[in-house]
């Protein structure tokens, strides 16, 4: 899992990035640096203009993309991380805490992936166990008690499918979050920043405004899982990724998300600071709209929002 961090189709861009960085470090002439930068921009523009759904999945998993704690550091002040579900333990695959956005205190929950091998293992590749979801819920209930909005960052391959997670009630933990988030009497803004992996993503993904990064993906099952089950063939991931309609454009069209947040040329990892600023702007706008609503109206509106999702015939 994740031993080859950069997918092959990004190789030309990665190569240019490296050459540009070397040129900048080595004190190359301004003309050469400008030439490389233009070349990089052109390459990035060309590549992202027609990404296949499967390529988007790989881009969404890029290890240099900003993760939850990068957004926290970039956008908030006074971050106080809290730990533990008060039942079993603390899950590093989910971070939760309090912080200030423009001076106003908010609660933050989100999946956390690692960047190097050690941290990725520590974060379990961003795959939470039940105690992670229970920690998130504890913080959301605290937010409700003190009237603070909740901001949730979604970025996970999925809930951890392990023996211990099953024993401690993975399904129950996810289910409870879905019901409790639906009933929460404070605003919830969700940002899908990378991978929206099935129930493991949705368990912190019920909100009043659902924002999604341009190259993020959100799906009922991973293309790998889908290919294995429906085609019984791992090499069909490309077809599975296309069939699942998991891109931000698909989700907007299907009425699942409210807004697509544009990413820097070539993806969020090319200019993390810019990506983080974009998310900040969108969060502020979403929160200011929701703050005007009455507390008790929020669950009613949220139910109506999810109530409307789905397509069926009635004859």
């Amino acid at each position, binding site marked *: 899992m994740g031993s080859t961090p950069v997918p092959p189709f990004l190789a030309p861009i990665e190569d240019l990035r490296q050459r540009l960085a070397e040129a900048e470090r080595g004190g190359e002439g301004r003309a050469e640096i400008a030439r490389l930068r233009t070349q990089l921009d052109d390459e990035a523009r060309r590549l992202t203009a027609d990404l296949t759904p499967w390529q988007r999945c790989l881009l969404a998993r890029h290890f240099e993309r900003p993760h939850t704690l990068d957004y926290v550091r970039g956008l908030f002040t006074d971050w106080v991380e809290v730990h533990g579900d008060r039942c079993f333990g603390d899950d590093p695959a989910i971070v939760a805490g309090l912080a200030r956005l423009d001076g106003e205190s908010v609660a933050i929950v989100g999946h956390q992936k690692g960047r190097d091998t050690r941290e990725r293992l520590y974060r379990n590749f961003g795959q939470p166990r039940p105690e992670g979801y229970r920690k998130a819920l504890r913080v959301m209930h605290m937010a409700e008690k003190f009237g603070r909005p909740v901001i949730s960052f979604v970025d996970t391959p999925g*809930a*951890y*499918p*392990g*023996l211990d*997670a*099953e*024993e*401690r*009630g*993975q*399904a*129950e933990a*996810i*289910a*409870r979050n*879905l*019901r*409790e988030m*639906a*009933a929460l009497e404070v605003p919830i803004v969700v940002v899908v920043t990378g991978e929206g992996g*099935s*129930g493991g993503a*949705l*368990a912190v*993904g*019920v909100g009043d405004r659902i924002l999604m990064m341009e190259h993020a993906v*959100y*799906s*009922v*099952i991973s293309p790998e*899982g*889908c290919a294995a*089950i*429906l*085609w019984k063939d791992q090499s069909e991931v490309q077809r599975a990724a296309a*069939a*699942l*309609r*998991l891109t931000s454009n*698909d*989700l907007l069209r*299907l009425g*699942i998300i409210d807004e697509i947040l544009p990413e820097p040329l070539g993806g969020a990892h090319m200019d993390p600071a810019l990506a983080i600023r974009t998310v900040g702007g969108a969060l502020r706008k979403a929160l200011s709209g929701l703050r005007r609503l009455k507390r008790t109206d929020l*669950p009613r509106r*949220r*139910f109506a929002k*999810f*109530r409307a*999702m*789905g*397509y*069926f*015939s*009635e*004859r």
Partner: protein
Amino acid sequence: MAWFRRTDEPTRKSRVPEGLWVKCEGCREILYKKELERGLFVCPRCGFHHRVSARTRLAQVFDDGRWKELFARIFSTDPLEFVDSKPYAERLRALREKGSRSDALVVGAGRISGVKAIVAAMEYSFMGGSMGSAVGEKMTRAIEQCLKSRLPFVVVSCSGGARMQEGILSLMQMAKISAALAQLHAARLPYISVLTDPTTGGVTASFAMLGDLNIGEPGALIGFAGPRVIEQTIRQTLPEGFQRSEFLLEHGMLDMVVPRQELKENLARCLQMLA
């Protein structure tokens, strides 16, 4: 014993076959079909609980086997134009032509030992009981009907989880139904979840685990991830009885494991005290 049975048998085999005599899937004993049926499809010899259709289930729990079907006109469509080995639209058409009119969920209203209730039972023979938009909508309407008529709600789950062919829309049904259950919860109306073999994936991770009471059928496979996925993740074989009802009872996820013959009486007793 029941849980030694392979869980990946095709549905075709899991249904009780035609004819006078049938072979028990648990102990392989040849049984007289009428007798098996009288025993609610539980083997009189080994106690194996054979899978039953949603309609059979409703007939078993409602008084005199009488109930009224609700929201039967809701059916799946193919919003994603999903194609795997066969187009999803074609699969749906074939199921409909075979006479499946209720998608993977049958909702019924009736009385359980005199107590008025709405019961929603999942139909495994319809694409593995999978949950798509139609199941989500029917479940939500059933809950809304309970809210309107102040009725208790019972769900009998039997499902592999969310329906892949409707992609993200299937996933969102988990949130939709759970949000509706939040309202039922707030209205203080009883909700009992009955989990039968199998109940996995997005169904377990939403409404099936949210009962005021969660009841398992003996030997039922209940979990979030499927056993094969877990084995691939941890690279070891799973212990005997893992993810079976009795295991979940021991780990605090179920209130009780109730044999099918006692289910109706049990539901009635609980509902009478809660409703």
